Each structure stands twice: as structure tokens, then as C-alpha cells.
């Protein structure tokens, strides 16, 4: 295994982990399987494309062709994606959480509503923007480093570093802030949280916005490698869901471990000559089925057992 492969695997893993952590946190704190995560992903991609397209002339006029211009462009792309993701999270909160969170069949119904949202949003994007792929401006610029005889593209390195940074920030927020403490308390015992003055409705909104923003970051980062398109969210959604499940729903560390496992698996399957890219999904699912046969609740239980 050479360094290029490892970088590629880590690149995949970081995107998947961003998606999976969002799904995992949301499930354990709000009790919702968010099928609209893919729609959030696609919408944030489009928002970044739209905003950066609209602001391009303005930035070019103010900064010219300086380094400042590309920095501004990068921050515009990231910021618009994050804001759009958080906005999607708020919409999901208003439609799939608030009306039904204390009604019967909440978990199934929220799954169905988010699924419907996902289908509706993807089709609306398809209808409005058309199926054409759109390229985002390169946040990290073009070019590559030479390191130990392998070429590392800027966008790959940037994705890995950026995603890790965002994840570390998220985990630190969960770990050290007051809100994060509330979210963790609600993840572990909803009734106890209510007795501690932590309201479910008030905590669910920041959680949904946070996970939406994570999907937005993932969209902005992945769009450095592939294009923005209406159906771009489907594969990250499926991957995120499977990885969150594989990691044992609700376990953040399990999700990260599973994302790294699957990232490496895909990278390796992709370069094996007689398998190739076409068998990547095949191999992933075979691996997951194998794991589930031996560990019916995913690999999360190996790492922590915080939920009773």
C-alpha cells in the first residue's frame, strides 16, 4: 500500500465520517433517523455554487487576482454551504420534529417525513437546476505536493485536514460546552434530561442545525473532488447511514472508526485490478453483512457502552 492510496482512503473516510457523525448524533439525541441528510448535502452544494457564482465578480473587483481573493472565495464557499446546511436542519426541525415529537410512532414517522423531504428536495433541485453537474470554485487551489515520491493534491489534503478540524471542533463542543453537555445528557437519558431542566424541543434545534452544518461542510469539501448535482447527496446519504449503523448508532467514536474502515476498504477495492470501481458498493455491503453477522449491533459496542 502506497501513500497515495492512504491519502485517498483518508479523503473518503473524512467525508463519510462527517456524514455519519451527523446521523449518529441526531439518532441518539433526537431519536430521528435523518433520511434528509442527502438533501441537505445537495442543497448546501447548490447554495455554495449559487452564492460563489453571484459574488465572484464582486470579489474579483475588490481584490483582483491576489491571494486575498482566493481566501475570500474559499470562505464564501464554506460559509454559504454551512449556513445552507444549518438552514436545512432548521427546516427538518420544523417539519419532522416539532409537529410529531410527542405523538405515537414518532421514530417511524420522522423517518418517513425526512425521506419524503429528501425525495422532494432532490426532485425539486433536478427540476429547477436541471441534471447538469456544476463545479465549485476550488477552495484549496490547484496543484499538488511531492511527498515521498507520491503526489498529494491540494484538495485531498485540504479535505482531510478540514474535515478532521471540523470533527475535532464538533467533538470538543460536545465535550466542553454547556450545550454539548445538555446534548450528551439527552443522548443518554431523555427523561433524566427533562428532570435536569433540559428541554427536548430547545435542544433539538441546535442539534439539527449542527448536523445540517456538518453535511454542508461535507458537501463543500466533497465538491472539491466531484461535482455538485441534484443526486449528489444520495451516495453520501447511503454511505453515511450504513457507516453510522456499522459504527453502532449513537456512538460517535464507532462512527469514526467505521468511516475509516470503509474508506480504506473502498480505496483498496478500487485499485485491485479485477474488481475496480464498479465493485466498490458490492464490496462495502458484503463487508457490512459480514460484520453484522458476527456483531449484530455494529462495532460501536467494542469502543464504548454509554447507552443503557
Amino acid at each position, binding site marked *: 500500500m502506497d501513500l497515495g492510496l492512504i491519502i485517498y482512503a483518508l479523503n473518503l473516510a473524512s467525508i463519510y465520517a462527517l456524514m455519519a457523525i451527523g446521523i449518529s448524533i441526531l439518532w441518539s439525541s433526537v431519536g430521528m433517523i435523518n433520511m434528509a441528510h442527502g438533501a441537505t448535502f445537495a442543497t448546501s452544494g447548490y447554495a455554495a455554487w449559487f452564492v460563489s457564482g453571484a459574488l465572484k465578480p464582486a470579489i474579483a473587483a475588490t481584490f483582483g487576482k491576489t491571494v486575498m481573493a482566493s481566501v475570500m472565495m474559499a470562505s464564501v464557499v464554506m460559509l454559504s454551504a454551512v449556513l445552507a446546511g444549518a438552514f436545512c436542519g432548521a427546516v427538518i426541525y420544523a417539519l419532522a420534529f416539532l409537529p410529531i415529537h*410527542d*405523538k405515537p410512532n414518532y421514530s417511524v414517522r420522522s423517518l418517513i417525513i425526512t425521506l419524503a423531504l429528501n425525495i422532494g428536495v432532490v426532485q425539486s433541485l433536478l427540476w429547477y437546476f436541471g441534471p447538469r453537474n456544476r463545479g465549485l470554485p476550488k477552495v484549496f487551489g490547484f496543484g499538488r505536493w511531492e511527498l515521498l515520491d507520491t503526489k498529494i493534491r491540494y484538495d485531498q489534503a485540504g479535505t482531510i485536514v478540514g474535515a478532521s478540524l471540523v470533527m475535532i471542533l464538533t467533538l470538543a463542543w460536545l465535550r466542553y460546552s*454547556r450545550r454539548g*453537555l*445538555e446534548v*450528551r*445528557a439527552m*443522548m*443518554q*437519558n431523555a*427523561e*433524566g*434530561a*427533562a*428532570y*435536569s*431542566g*433540559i*428541554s*427536548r*424541543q*430547545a435542544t433539538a434545534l441546535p442539534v439539527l442545525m449542527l448536523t445540517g452544518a456538518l453535511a454542508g461542510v461535507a458537501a463543500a469539501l466533497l465538491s472539491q473532488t466531484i461535482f455538485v448535482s441534484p443526486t449528489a447527496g444520495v451516495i453520501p446519504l447511503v454511505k453515511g447511514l450504513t457507516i453510522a449503523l456499522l459504527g453502532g448508532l449513537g456512538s460517535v467514536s464507532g462512527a469514526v472508526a467505521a468511516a475509516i474502515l470503509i474508506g480504506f476498504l473502498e480505496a483498496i477495492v478500487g485499485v485491485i485490478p479485477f474488481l475496480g470501481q464498479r465493485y466498490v458498493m458490492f464490496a462495502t455491503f458484503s463487508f457490512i453483512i459480514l460484520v453484522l453477522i458476527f456483531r449484530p449491533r455494529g462495532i460501536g459496542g467494542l469502543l*464504548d*457502552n*454509554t*447507552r*443503557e
Partner: protein
Amino acid sequence: MPEILRIKQLSAGYGPLRVLHEIDFTVSEGERIGLVGLNGHGKTTLIRAITHMTGWQQGSIKLDGEEIGGTRSLGAGRRTAALVKKGIAVAPQGDAIFPGLSVRKHLECGAHTKLAWRNRRRRIDEILQIFPPLRSLQHNLVGKLSGGERRMVSVGRMLMSDARLYLIDEPSLGLAPKISQRVMDALWALPVTGAMIIAEQNVSLLSGRADRILGMHAGRMRGDIGHVELN
């Protein structure tokens, strides 16, 4: 003494089943009240109804003279957090603990008022003073503690913020007599500003210390039964 809690004609239950029937009682400032009754006679339901964990449609509950409203328009459990913020502190039955947090973090969860959050370190240290066995365990996960230690954590979490009304449900349930005695001693030793209601089956733990002991039977309030042995 000003009134803290006034319950009038409260009836509550689960679905069509009515568990509490026309409960009437008041609690004044500084009072510590024992709520005594056998299993299944409505002690826990009363406490859950006060905190809106169990739905009730009839009667009225006033906290500091302010009506806290029935659960007709909103589902049960939806306003519990808001009521806790208004000044009802609860140590529920079964402890409702967060198994993945350390003892200190767990206690921090109870600091929901601004003041308590600012002084959380000092308050945690105070609570560790009240429950000495927790001092050596303060960085352990709560999920790994024994039943008695969990109960202390739960009661400690309740004490983190200043409240008007403290509700403690069965502090001796499932504990060895010695440990339950210790938890009780700690509860009586507390400098409490508001009022306290302790639901308990074992009347001997309350007898001689509670200001009043109210009996509950078949979902009805029996009034002050005095300090006698319950049969």
C-alpha cells in the same frame, strides 16, 4: 409562612385509568413533608403529576401562587423541563442517571440556573462534602457506580440549583438499610430554602423528623397521619 405548593382537587392517571382522586394539600415554606403509602397507591404518580411527567386534566396545582396548568393542551412530559426551570427540583424513582458522564459532569447537568452554572465548581464541592463516598469517585463514570452511589449522584444533581420545591421519590428504594439511612441523614441535614416532599414507603425513616407525614391510600390523600407506624 408563605405557601409554596397548593394542590386542589387533582385527579390524574394513565389513559382511561384514574390513579389519583381529588388530591388536596398545601406545602408551606421550610416544610419537609413525608409522603407515605404502600406500593401502587399513587405516591410516584403524584410526584410525576406535579412535574407533568404524567398527564392530568383536572384540578389545579399552584407553585408560589402561580397556576402551572394542566396537560390538556400539551402532551405529558413536554413541560417538565420548563417546570424544573421554574423551581421544582426532582430526584425521580429509578434515578434517571446519565451513565456515560462522570460524576462531576453529571452533577454539572443539574446546574440549570445562571447562578448555579457560574458557581458550579463550588457547588459540586459542597455536594461532595455532603456525600463523602462520592469524593473518591468524582471522575468515574456514573454507569459504573453501585445503586447507593447512583442515588447519591441523583440527589446531588437535584441539589445543584436552588429550587422552591424539592421532590424526592423513594430515596431508600432498593438500598441496603445502612446506605438508605445515610442518604436520609444527608437529606435532613440539608439547608433547604424552599420546601421538600419525600415519598417513602418506610415510615420509620421519616418518623420524628418530617414536619408532617401525609398518608396516601388507593390514590386518595389521607391527611396528616402523625408519627405512627403504618400498617
